[in-house]
Structure formats: structure tokens, C-alpha cells
């Protein structure tokens, strides 16, 4: 889990050599890849994160249903080895374009769409137990951090509270970022940028010694890894603040125990100790927000019923929240707090909750 530097070119090279040896032995070349997706994930009760099961798929070159993917896997592996050796970084879309060409002697493309190359990258990560970041691949950046923390990114050193109201945009890869000086008591992760901007304007970070992280919807890998590292390396508690609806709650659960899709990364991305600060259904009564709720749509209800079944939401308190949500038939957004006053969230709602530890598990 620590940043134990791995010899990535050697790992990739050995992966290729195994295939090469199969070919020399005239065996049917195959690649063993752990299965991803719902059928092969489980909730690890001890570690409190979503984990990958032990089911494997075998990708055979001689099976026409697999041949193309087999070729794509080798192409991506080969490309990544070059990236790492040349010390270059490429976006996953760049990788797609770099490798896209017509297969020699046919009219077919190596890749027809980025949705073909993305899962291949994840295949390699799981099969070789290395991170995309270690393959020098980056995803589009989304989300930012604001607060009194001095970061070192390559040659640059800066304090994330001195970069203006926009904070520091967190890149897709944060493995090499160094935390030089942290002057904060906790990390507050906020679903919407609008709410984060509100808190910055209210000088919430300074007044409460908090690091604000806006994830802007489902938290991207860079943000998740950053939160994970702040928690693991700097022992900062993590509080999550989202809309009071099934989507917001799922954002929280992903930050806390990882996602099904990236279950193989849960240990590096998840923060099992994270706490949920709001919005909750109880806030509606507590703060008199009945007038500013939104009606649930059928889709929302369906989603609630779905996540109620997830093992990690089986906690009594969460089940009660969801039942209450279905019963009231409403959802509540973070920004509904503005109904009280613009400062309300920064001056009363959040400090009170943190002070009194009014959290959901």
C-alpha cells in the first residue's frame, strides 16, 4: 500500500514474456485476468471496503470472441511500457488515439472507441496489480482542493489556500504529490462545486482549520487517491457532505469503501473511516426545510431500493434514512440550506454537526 516503487517496465515485460513462452511452446496463448464487475465483488467486513473476488477469466488468442481483446491488451501493455521508460504521461484518451490504427491487412481498427481501450487499461491494472497512475496514464482532471496545505508537485511548491478562490485543481495522478506542511484538522469532501465555492467565500476553511475538497459529482480517481493519502499519511478525519438523495449517498459510499467497478483499487482509494455529515432526511425537520425539498422521481425511488440492498448500506441508520426518504417521497439538496441564509451552512450547520459529531456511519 505504501509507495513502494515497482519496476513497472519489468512487470510489463514479464507479462509479455509469459505469452511469448506459451507461443514458443506451441500452446494456445492466454492471459489470466481477474473478473471485474458485480459478479466478482464482495464487501470485506474486516477491512470495510469493497473487494474483488477470486474469479478469473482467461482470454484466449485462439478464441475468435477473445482474439481482438487479446491483441488490444498486448498493444496497451506495450504502449505503457514505452510511456514509463520514456518518462512520459498520457491521458487515457491520448492512449486510445495513439493506438488506434487499421489492423494490417484488414479494414478493421485496433480500437473503434475509447470504451474499448478503457476497460483494457483496467484489465492490466487488475491482472498485474499495478495502478493506472504507475503506468503513467492519466484521466481527465476534475475536482479541486482548498485549504492550508503546502503541496509539492514536481518543481512547484504552493499553499492551496493561497491560490485564489478556485483552489488547486487535482490532477488525475497524485502519486508523486508531496504533502510538505498540513495545517488542518480534517478534510471536508463536498459534492458540488457551488457549495464548495460558498464555503470558500465564507472563509470556512480558515475559520475551522478544514481542507475543502470538491469532488464535483462521483469522485474521480485523483480526488479519491488524494483523500485516501491525506487520511492514511496525515491521519486527518474525512467528512463527506453531499445532497440528501441516493446519488449523493452513493458518492459517499464510493469515497468510503470503494466502487464495484474499481474494487481492485479499494484499498488504495477507499477511506473506511470516513463519516457522513449530510444532507440527511433528519435535517429536513431539524432545520425546518420542508418547503425546499424536491419530489422524488420514479428513477430516484428505484435507485434507493437498489442501494438499500448493498451490504455496506445495511447499517440500521442508513436503512432508516432510506425508508424515511421513500416515505416522505422527497430529496434535499445541499444548497437548499441557503433558504435559511447564505452563511447558515458555514456558520451553523457544518460547525454544529462537527462539534456534536452528528454523523451517519
Amino acid at each position, binding site marked *: 500500500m505504501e509507495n513502494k516503487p515497482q519496476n513497472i517496465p519489468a512487470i510489463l*515485460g514479464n507479462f*509479455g514474456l509469459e505469452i511469448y513462452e506459451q507461443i514458443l511452446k506451441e500452446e494456445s496463448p492466454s492471459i489470466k485476468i481477474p*473478473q471485474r464487475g458485480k459478479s466478482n465483488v464482495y464487501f470485506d467486513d474486516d477491512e470495510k471496503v469493497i473487494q474483488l473476488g477470486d474469479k478469473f477469466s482467461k482470454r484466449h488468442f485462439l478464441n475468435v470472441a477473445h482474439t481482438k481483446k487479446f491483441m488490444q491488451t498486448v498493444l496497451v501493455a506495450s504502449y505503457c511500457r514505452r510511456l514509463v521508460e520514456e518518462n512520459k504521461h498520457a491521458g487515457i484518451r491520448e492512449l486510445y488515439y495513439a493506438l488506434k490504427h487499421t489492423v494490417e491487412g484488414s479494414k478493421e481498427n485496433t480500437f473503434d472507441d475509447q470504451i474499448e481501450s478503457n476497460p483494457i487499461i483496467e484489465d492490466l491494472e487488475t491482472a498485474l496489480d499495478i495502478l493506472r497512475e504507475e503506468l503513467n496514464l492519466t484521466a481527465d482532471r476534475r475536482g479541486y482542493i482548498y485549504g492550508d496545505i503546502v503541496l509539492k508537485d514536481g518543481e512547484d511548491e504552493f499553499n492551496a489556500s493561497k491560490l485564489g478562490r478556485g483552489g488547486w485543481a487535482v490532477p488525475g495522478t497524485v502519486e508523486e504529490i508531496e504533502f510538505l506542511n498540513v495545517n488542518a484538522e480534517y478534510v471536508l469532501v463536498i459534492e458540488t462545486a457551488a457549495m464548495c465555492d460558498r464555503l470558500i467565500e465564507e472563509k470556512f476553511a480558515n475559520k475551522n482549520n478544514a481542507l475543502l475538497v470538491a469532488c464535483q459529482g462521483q469522485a474521480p480517481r485523483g480526488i479519491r487517491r488524494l483523500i485516501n493519502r491525506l487520511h492514511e499519511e496525515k491521519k486527518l478525519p474525512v467528512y463527506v457532505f453531499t445532497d440528501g438523495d441516493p446519488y449523493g449517498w452513493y458518492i459517499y459510499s464510493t469515497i468510503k469503501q470503494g466502487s464495484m467497478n474499481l474494487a481492485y483499487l479499494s484499498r488504495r482509494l477507499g477511506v473506511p473511516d470516513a463519516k457522513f455529515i449530510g444532507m440527511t432526511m433528519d435535517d429536513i425537520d431539524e432545520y425546518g426545510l420542508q418547503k425546499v425539498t424536491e419530489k422524488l422521481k420514479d428513477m430516484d425511488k428505484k435507485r434507493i431500493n437498489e442501494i438499500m440492498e448493498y451490504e455496506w448500506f445495511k447499517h440500521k441508520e442508513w436503512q432508516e434514512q432510506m425508508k424515511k426518504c421513500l416515505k416522505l417521497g422527497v430529496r434535499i439538496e445541499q444548497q437548499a440550506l441557503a433558504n435559511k441564509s447564505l452563511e447558515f451552512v458555514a456558520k451553523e450547520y457544518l460547525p454544529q454537526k462537527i462539534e456534536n459529531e452528528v454523523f451517519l456511519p
Partner: protein
Amino acid sequence: MSETKVKHADEIFKSFKMQSVSEFFKKNAAMLGYTGKLRSLTTLVHEGVTNSLDACEEARLFPDISVYISEIGPEHYRVIMEDNASGIPLDYIPHVFGKMLAGSKAHRNIQSRGQQGIGVSGAVMYSQVTTGKPTEVVTSTGDKIINKVNIKIDVEKNAGEIISRETLKNPDKWRGTRINLEAKNLQYNRSKYGPYSYLKMTAIANPHTRILFVEPDGTKILFDRNVRVIPKNPKEMKPHPHGTSADDILSMIKNSSATRVRTFLVSEFTRVSTKKVEEIEQISGLDLDINPKKVDWEYAEKLVNAIKQITFMAPPTEGLIPIGADSVKLGLEGILAPEFVHTVTRSPQTYHGGIAFIVEAGIAYGGGAGNNGLDIIRYANRTPLIFDQGGCCITEAAKSIDWKRYGVKDDNAPLTIFVNLVSTHIPYTSAGKQAIATEEEIYNEIRFALMEAGRSLSRYLSGKRRAHEKLTKKKTLLRYVVETSNALGSLIKAEDNSKIIKALTDIVEKKYDFEETNGSEEKANQILEENGAEEVSENGE
């Protein structure tokens, strides 16, 4: 009124007679096949070709038949047909070409092609009725002379009349007969009702025959000989008691020399033993020792009723001459050049309790088979049935089969279905003799034959599909070999990618060579590939 001259009876009768024969022809044109411009032309060709085939068969010769059709005016055609049969002696020419309703096989219990009873004289008549011209017949038995005659039908005498005659020298010992006639109200095209289709079908069912055909536009088509065996001549068979009517019995008695009914029954019928006669006697209560000449209608009817209640051995079938599955196969292959052929000759069966028949069927797929989809070609005693397809037992039986079950995936599949019904008595639906009545036993036999052929087709098609899939898979795999090898080469920093390319190519080639000799491996891989998903295994470690 008194001034009017009274006509003599002879005069009236003469014109009546004259009228009656041509009237007969006109009234029965449909029955005789002379209806519609295209069909009339086909019938002209049919009569000539059938005559030639029969003549060659009887003389044990391989038929070489030529048919030339040329357009000489609007709806006006010349038809020339030539064969290499034994030729016709001069004295017999009027009989063969002039006598209507004089078929030699009409009243015999024998398998015959035509059964029309009018034959080539109908062609002469049609020509005469539409153009007033005689038919030219050139024939030689292969001796020193060739007879060239112009013949007309004397409607009064119902006999052929030689209008003019010429004798030519025959230095090359030519043998055969050539008919040259012209007729109007005709039309030529290549539809399935025309002479082209008729000759093609004839060639399939008579693979020992060579037919040269010249179309009006000069196109020459050769339907070549594909079999070096002349079919056996059909034998006349005694009738089986089942399927005999009171009328049949009375007319048989006329030609019998038996002195007692008892011996008449044993000698004139097949499968009637003295023991069976005793049974007939018991059941009917008739005196079977009377002279057959004394048998009246009532007696005959009682006899028939008794016969119906008795079980007889099935009729002998040596009189039935099927084409033979091998010959049908060669015929279909030779004419249609299909990818696949399967033919079946079923064992003899009876319908109506006593009429023997044999069903022969064949399926040809691909190549020249089919006619923009399913093409059913029907034969009765190897004579093509061209018209009335819809109402025919063969069509019904062929269409009752779900061809999809036999791997024929779409309606446009190139499929020819061949069915020949062989019998001494073909149950036609009408006097036109172009459709077979749906007798249950015949219908079932046709279905069985087609299903048997269908199973073979199904095996062929699935094999073909598998081979095709295999080839496609191999191609797919080979397509990725170079790309994968190059990527692998750069991943492991190999010095020479061509070594990987070769090794991987070998693996692919080997897999498919191996599969060809190992069914279970193929099956296993097939199942794997059908599932599409990547193979899943639990990791027990």
C-alpha cells in the same frame, strides 16, 4: 320451299364427319395440351420428343434428339425435331403420323410416358388446323434410301395421307426421323412453361439422352448425355385384383380365351391363386365354373365386391421401371451442376389397394439449382409435368415439408426438388394430365422420400456452414496475428518479430488442421465460442 333441293344423307353425313374430327380437336384442345400460345408450342415439342424417346428405348439406342424452333411470322413458328431412332418404314408413316387416338399403349396395363393416346399425330393436326399445311417427315431405317414425305391427316378417314413423296439416296447410312412442321397461335419464351424448361426437365429425367436445342434467336443449348445405360423397357403387367372395376372385368373377358371364370381369374390377374379363387367363391356365393362369356354386369359387380374383402399379395413390381437414384443423381448433376445432390428411389407401394407405384425424389442445392428459390420439378413416368403445378400431389407434398428444419434458411435458397412418380396408372386430376391427384399413399411416399433426401441436405448444409465458420474464424485469427505479434515483440523488446509472427501463425494453422480430424475438440471449441464469454474459472488457491 319446294324449289329447294333436298340434300342427300351422304352429303350431310360427310360434312358432319368432317366437322366432327376437327371439332373434336378444338373441343378437346385443352385435354390434348393445345391451349394457350406457349403451352401449345411446348406440347408440340413434347409430342415429338416423347415419340423419339419411346422409339429409341424400344430399339435400345441412346437417344440423340435435336429440336429447332424458328419464328417465321407473328405467332407463327417452325418446329423441326430429329432423332436417331430406328426410323419408320414407309408403310407405317401414315399410321404413326396420321391416326388420331391410336396410341399403342392406351389400353394396356403398362407404364408409359405419354398416356395421351394422341401423340405426334396431334402435332400434325395442330399444324394443319392453324396453317393448312402438311407436315414434312424425313425418315430412314438406315438402308439405301431416305423417304421424304408430306403428310396430312384425312379427317374423314381418321388416317394419315401422304400428299407427296420423294426418295433420296442415303450414302451415309443415316438413320432416324426428322419432322418439320409449322404452326400458328404460338409463342416462345424461356418461362418454366416453355419448351426450354420442358427439354431441360426431360434431360434430367432421361440422363441417357442427348438433346440439342436451338432457340428462335439462334441460341444453341446442349443438354448432354450423363448416363451410359439405357433404361429397361417396361413390361406389361397383369392387373391386380384390387383396383379392378366391374367394367374392367367385362372388357378383360372379351380378350380372354378362358372357358371358366375360375381359370379366367387365375390366368388374367396377378396374385390370384386357386386358393384365393376358393375364397372368392365362398364370399360371393357365385358359381365360378360358368363360361366367362356369360358374365353380366351384376355378376361382375358381385365378383368385385368379394375381391375387395380379400387380402392379396401386393402386386409384383417388375413392370415398374424407375429411373434409379444413381441416374437421377447424374441427371441432376449433369444438367444443373449443383453443389449438392441427394436422390432416393423408394421401394414399390400400392394405392387404391392395388395399383403399384414407386416414388423417386431428388434434391439439388446450389449451382444451377432452384429458380429464384424453390423449384419443384414434377414427373409422371419420367415425363415432365409442366402445368397445373398448384393442384398437384407432388407440389402439395413438397410444400408440406418445413425446409427450414433441413437447414434451408431462406425462401430464396437455390433448391430444386425432383419427384418422379412411376406407375402403370398415374392418377391424374384431369384429362389434361398435368397434375397428380392427392392419393394419401402417394402423398406420404413423396414426403418420406423428400424427408430422406432432406436429412442428407441438412447434413451437407450444416457441414458447409461449419466449414465456412471455421474458415471465417481462421481468417479472423490470422488477421490479428501480425498486429499482436508486433505488439508483443515491442513489449518484450524482441529482436525479430517475424519469429513470433511465424510461431503464432503456426499455432492458428495447426488448430484448424487438428480440428478437421478431431470432432470432439471442434465441438468443445464451438460450444466455447458460442458462449462468447471469456472462460471463467474459480481460483481455488
